[in-house]
């Protein structure tokens, strides 16, 4: 949130313009929207962060490629990487830590004990269980042991990326290390999973900020995924959906349909079976920056049954191949006037008025009201 002061002498060249208040609030609102909170919640988050109530985050890395962290840091909006680090207090992260060795281990323990029961534990990467978990060790301890200790003291546990959520690429057949996701290591604990390869940083940010501001977690599906981001399949909100409905499919990479941006279903797109919000929340704040947006089929990275298992170009089954008739048409009928209808209306209206006039005439001619009694 530092902003270069005009006229202030800066000792180092200022490559980063910082983030002004407007952008800061905007990012908070986007993060709030990512987890389905109203814009007002974004404001509250911004206020909480401005007051210094930044959530303490301990970020664990296990078997993975660090792609999720990279995505988080390589957001293209200027200053967003700093911003993300401003919104949360990242107390331990192997990727970003300046310290190394024993010093780093101390930082982990200090953060863990200072905010016990309150800090957010973010897990990135799968945890190997085979042969006592020896295939991933940090400071002489297995990933499983670290996960159990840190996870046990955390206020909230978030598994970011497909590896931490359900094993991801390390768990692909034949799964030599016996890799599993964090929920499998922490049975009985609520683990919010944000699968994706990589996971969309806004889904993480929103979840963390919701926890920090309101002390709550978003509603989750049976696999621990926030319903706000993972309730619908890609196919439902895909910008290429109209091509699917109209039967216009890419048959071969580089063919005319591919160049025209037609539906990639027949190229093996897993969109119809993949729960994620990629089609609405693109990556790196670049519109269109997601697989289908650049002309590649979705490969189902958020789904344990699809990613790294189903062949890349095999098609998936679809529940409802065509939209139901109850969807409103794009060009609805705008109504018209039928000659018969106007005729009937005119006849009946005329007859009624005529009858009324006749009746009133008859009444007028009739005997004047006789008085009884």
């Amino acid at each position, binding site marked *: 949130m530092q902003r270069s002061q005009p006229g202030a002498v800066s000792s180092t060249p200022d490559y980063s313009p910082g983030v002004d208040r407007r952008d800061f609030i905007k990012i908070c609102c986007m993060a709030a929207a990512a987890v389905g909170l109203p814009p007002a919640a974004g404001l509250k988050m911004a206020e909480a962060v401005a007051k210094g109530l930044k959530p303490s985050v301990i970020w664990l890395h296990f078997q993975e490629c660090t792609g999720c962290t990279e995505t988080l840091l390589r957001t293209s909006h200027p200053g967003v990487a700093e911003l993300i680090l401003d919104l949360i207090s990242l107390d331990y992260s192997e990727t970003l830590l300046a310290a190394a060795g024993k010093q780093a281990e101390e930082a982990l323990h200090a953060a863990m004990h200072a905010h016990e029961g309150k800090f957010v534990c973010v897990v990135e990467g799968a945890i190997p269980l085979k042969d006592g978990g020896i295939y991933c060790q940090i400071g002489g301890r297995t990933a499983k042991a670290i996960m159990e200790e840190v996870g046990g003291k955390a206020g909230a546990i978030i598994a970011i990326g497909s590896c931490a959520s359900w094993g991801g690429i390390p768990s692909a057949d034949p799964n030599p290390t016996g890799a599993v996701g964090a929920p499998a290591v922490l049975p009985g604990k609520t683990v919010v999973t944000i699968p994706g390869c990589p996971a969309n940083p806004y889904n993480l940010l929103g979840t963390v900020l919701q926890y920090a501001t309101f002390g709550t977690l978003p509603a989750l599906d049976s696999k621990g995924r926030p319903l706000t981001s993972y309730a619908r399949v890609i196919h439902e909100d895909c910008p290429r959906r109209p091509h699917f409905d109209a039967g216009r499919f890419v048959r071969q990479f580089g063919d005319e349909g591919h160049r025209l941006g037609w539906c990639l279903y027949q190229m093996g797109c897993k969109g119809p079976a993949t729960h994620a919000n990629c089609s609405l929340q693109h990556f790196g704040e670049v519109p269109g920056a997601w697989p289908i947006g650049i002309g590649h089929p979705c490969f189902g990275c958020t789904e344990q049954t699809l990613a790294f298992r189903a062949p890349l170009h095999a098609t998936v089954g679809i529940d409802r191949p065509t939209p139901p008739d109850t969807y*409103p048409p794009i060009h*609805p*009928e*705008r*109504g*018209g*006037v*039928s000659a*018969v*209808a*106007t005729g*009937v*209306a005119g006849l*009946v209206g005329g007859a009624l008025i005529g009858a*009324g*006039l006749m*009746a*009133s*005439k*008859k*009444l*007028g*001619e*009739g005997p*004047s*009201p*006789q008085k*009884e*009694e």
Partner: protein
Amino acid sequence: MSDRAVPVGGPIVTPAFRWLMLVFGVGVVMAGWRFIAGLGPVTALSDGYPWGIWIAFDVVVGTALGCGGYSMAILVYIFNKGKYHPLVRPAVLTSALGYSLAAVAIVIDVGRYWNIWKLPFAWRWWNLSSALLEVALCVMAYVIVLWLEMSPVFLEKWKDGPPGLLRNLARSVSPILDRALLWIIALGLLLPTMHQSSLGSVMLLAHNKLHPLWHTPLLPLLFLVSCIAMGYGVVVLESTLSSRAFKRKDETPMLASLGGVTSGLLFAYVIIRLVDLAGRGRLGLVFTSGWLSFWFLVELALFLTPAVMLLNARTRSRTGSLFRIGMLVVLAGSLYRFVTYLIAFNPGPGWSYFPAVPEMLVTFGIVAFEIMVYIILVKRFPILAGARQGAGAH
């Protein structure tokens, strides 16, 4: 005492009644078709005009025509004019019928009619800023209130009827109802005040879809004033027609003496309408709006003519001209509602609406049913005052 209400008597199924049955039958078939085939094939409704005559006529005009009970109740119970009491029962009956059938029309018109019954119970999900919610709840409550107001009519008959379940019920309920009736009537005065003005608010929300000659913050007030005037108009028509059809004492003198109030209401409406337009600098539109200018001038003429006619004591004391006045008042209020809800309503370029024939047949069926039930009830139950027993051979 000739003011006591007695059943008219006579046979129910007359030639005129057979015709009504025919119209009603056709309406039932058409309504059945709507429930089988859906709204699309049966009506001319579109996304631009999601409501047509079933709402504009059956509900908006229909409930305003059903304001006879409201108008008479204001007069008798609020201004304490007891001499008009004989007019109350038939007026409340027309109201009860008008409102009940407006409710039926809504069920036919609404796409997901099977959800309607949930409305009063779904209080947790009520949108309290919705004018239509208020209309829906008020109309539902008012239908019940109107039939409760009518219930002494049935209880009176059953109380003296043959021994049995009905008599026992009537005898045990009557004393409770007598005590509660005061409150029921009070509620019956409050509810129409609320929803008749809300029917105006609904179009207030239509904002720029409604022509500026009709769109005004005073829409609720205009709907309220005109519905009370229409109530008197309906009472005049209903009383005159029934007194002729059933050969009972003419109520013209009593109706004529209502003329002053009605005239005042009509003038009030015209003044509010014009002052409002002038105050917001929209009077120029009266002459520059093409067809809508025509409709506006017709509406104004329809309100002004009966208002002026009623000022003349001789005109209003003659049955024929009073009947004509009644027609004009009813026509004026109906046209105002029709124009506001359909003709001056423009959802955007390209949309048009004219009711389809099946739509109209359903409406005719509903009106026919209303008249049929009216005839049956006045012939069998003590509703009309001063009827000669056995005069209902027509």
